[in-house]
């Protein structure tokens, strides 16, 4: 049997030269007449080791990384197809400490399976959740999702079970399931990794959601900046449809459900669920007021489940094994695991899936290895560009929606971006306002006008023009943005701005405690 060599094909590994490695490996295989085949898998999430290739020997995968095309000949010389002691050898993949210490539930198959193979998906437990759903019925699965305590991983942390029950109870038809894959937060990539590494998981999850709520049509709304994910999801949908996992009478059940991919056009605001629905309907991506909730009047005014990709990808596990198995992990009201994304100035960036309760300091120091520059950590932004900055003394907070909110922050989509002591926090506050100004849909006044005024005020504070007056006005503006904005973009922009001013007043030329 030919040896399988895994070369990741996800966007990050491609950016690091994985295609060159694949080409070089193929050339060596052909030139030496080796009995080996290449599989393009997703990333294991250990980004400092990418491109990390794996060789399957006697059903055990052995990792090497980071590999460049120039390393390939030497790797083959050293006995890549057996078990090599090459300098890049990392040992059995599952024993790499940074991977072995994780609790991979949602990311169980990401980087493991061939994302283009439905057989591989099923061989690794795929479709067990949907099969059980057909056996036990929609109400039991709904109960499982409620018991699991799963909350929306896109950022709002709304209980998924409540959302699904609302849609299930709605009488209007047709109903829709929309997967929000418009992952726009800087420093986040977990949705992308699911789609590139385990696309059938999302297909199965959406089908389970459709079965539970009675939906007939699904849409995966993917940002245009994710061409590999778009390609992978389209391929997975075609494959699933050809195998009878989508379409009429799925797997002999009475369920008829199909899914299509829709591609965004480069607007952060279309990750906001109502703007996304407008965009899918072919309209300008502008935020709708709530009520009505999308669960009652969503896509085309019909009941719609809108869930983030990671939220959905957590569902097959819950559907297959019951809600208790998932709820056994985590703390307080934060049940299960969170795929944390470590980015910014960090030595070992990547994806870390851990039960809620692990502290930010453990994640940054133990998993992340501190800053990449080697300088001290000065600030950490948790929860994307709208999340608060935290100072080093705050990092013992547990990963827990309520604990982080109590500290004045938000967990959001689980992105953690680290900055060392060279960061200028006035510049970062200005970036927050500037991000809001750039990405505002332009509908509500605080966001449309206020974000631009915020940039101007901070610029004047930076150069010392009427510093006190501009500072006072900036705080007023933050109140108007927080309380007056139509959606979370304007409403949360004050979080990074205020936290930067409070924690680092010296960067604004203000006395400590001045904010």
């Amino acid at each position, binding site marked *: 049997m030919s040896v399988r060599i895994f070369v990741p094909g996800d966007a990050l590994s491609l950016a690091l030269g994985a295609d060159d490695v694949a080409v070089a490996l193929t050339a060596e295989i052909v030139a030496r007449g080796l009995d080996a085949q290449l599989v393009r898998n997703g990333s294991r999430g250990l980004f400092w080791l990418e491109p990390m290739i794996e060789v399957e020997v006697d059903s055990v995968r052995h990792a090497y990384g980071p590999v460049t095309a120039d390393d390939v000949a030497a790797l083959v010389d050293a006995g890549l197809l057996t078990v090599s002691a090459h300098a890049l050898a990392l040992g059995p993949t599952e024993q790499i400490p940074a991977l072995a210490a994780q609790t991979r539930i949602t990311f169980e198959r990401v980087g493991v399976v061939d994302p283009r193979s439905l057989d591989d998906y099923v061989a690794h437990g795929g479709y067990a959740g949907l099969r059980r759903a057909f056996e036990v019925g929609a109400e039991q699965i709904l109960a499982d999702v409620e018991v699991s305590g799963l909350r929306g991983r896109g950022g709002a942390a709304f209980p998924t079970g409540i959302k699904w029950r609302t849609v299930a109870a709605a009488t209007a038809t047709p109903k829709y399931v929309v997967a929000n894959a418009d992952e726009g937060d800087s420093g986040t990539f977990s949705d992308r990794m699911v789609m590139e590494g385990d696309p059938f998981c999302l297909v199965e999850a959406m089908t389970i959601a459709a079965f539970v709520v009675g939906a007939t049509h699904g849409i995966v709304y993917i940002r245009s900046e994710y061409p590999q994910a778009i390609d992978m999801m389209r391929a997975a949908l075609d494959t699933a449809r050809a195998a009878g996992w989508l379409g009429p009478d799925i797997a002999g059940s009475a369920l008829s459900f199909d899914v299509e991919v829709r591609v965004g056009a480069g607007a952060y605001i279309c990750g906001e669920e109502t703007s996304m629905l407008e965009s899918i309907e072919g309209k300008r991506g502008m935020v709708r007021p709530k009520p009505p909730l999308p669960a009652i009047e969503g896509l085309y005014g019909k009941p719609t489940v809108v869930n983030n990709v990671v939220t959905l990808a957590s569902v097959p596990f819950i559907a297959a094994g019951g809600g208790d198995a998932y709820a056994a992990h985590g703390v307080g009201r934060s049940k299960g695991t969170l795929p944390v994304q470590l980015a910014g100035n960090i030595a070992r960036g990547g994806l870390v899936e851990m039960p809620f309760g692990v502290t930010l300091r453990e994640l940054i120091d133990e998993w992340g290895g501190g800053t990449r520059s080697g300088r001290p950590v000065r600030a950490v932004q948790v929860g994307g560009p709208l999340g608060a900055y935290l100072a080093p003394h705050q990092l013992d907070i547990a990963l827990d929606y309520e604990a982080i909110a109590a500290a004045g922050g938000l967990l959001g989509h689980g992105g953690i971006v680290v900055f060392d002591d060279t960061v200028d926090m006035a510049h970062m506050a200005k970036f927050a306002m500037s991000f809001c100004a750039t990405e505002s849909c*332009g509908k509500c006044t605080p966001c449309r006008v206020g974000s631009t005024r915020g940039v101007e005020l901070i610029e004047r504070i930076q150069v010392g023009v009427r510093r006190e007056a501009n500072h006072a006005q900036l705080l007023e503006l933050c109140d108007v943005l927080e*309380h007056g904005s139509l959606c979370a973009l304007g409403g949360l922009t004050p979080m990074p701005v205020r936290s930067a001013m409070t924690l680092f007043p010296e960067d604004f030329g203000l006395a400590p405690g001045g904010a």
Partner: protein
Amino acid sequence: MMTGRMIWNEVRGLREGIDLGTPPRDGQPVTLSINGVDTTVPAGSSVLLAATHAGVTVPKLCATDTLECFGSCRVCLVEIDGRRGYPASCTTPVEPGLVVRTSSDQLTRLRRGMVELYLSDYPEADLVGGWSEFHTTLEQVGLADGLPADHPYRHAEHHHQQGVLDESNPYFLFDQAKCIVCSRCVRACEEIQGTFALTIDGRGFSSRIVASQNESFLSSECVSCGACVQACPSDALIEKSLFPEGYHRADSGQA
């Protein structure tokens, strides 16, 4: 039992000539409290309509009873017991037993803060003696004289005061300097006239009203029905007959 339609007829009769804020509905009667006074309106009505029905004036800019609610100006914010934050009264449907307050120190602050943002991009020379809805709202929030002399927004670098002045249509003109991007014109063109000639171009601070594919009003699909002019609260769209000597921007500089 009174039907919603009967209640609505009563409302209409009592309040003729008053902008209810959002279009009337004819659902079953719903009673809620506005500033401590019970008021009854048809289900499906907005809190803004209920307040207007109760004789309470809530400052607003993007809402009007000829157009579906939109929720963009954020001036009609209220406080509702048991609800977080400050919901816009125009987009909040009435529910039995809601307890609504339309004024408080915090609401006054927020509304002023909101209107200050509008004033940071509106020609100051057009503030005095104006009679538009925008001017009425300025009076309601205590900013009829514009931004205070030392207000930081007076130094706004980004503005639209040299924006488009479109006089191509024989009957009306569009002065972007006075446009507050409330989308009432766009919605009137869609909802009242069904022409869909207007849209918003760009996003964020660059958002602006354009006709058809960013064309002049005259060469666009506009049919000169005037619905947009009637809907405009800030004199950005205005009849030319009001300016027999020709229209001149009073002040091309920034406020």
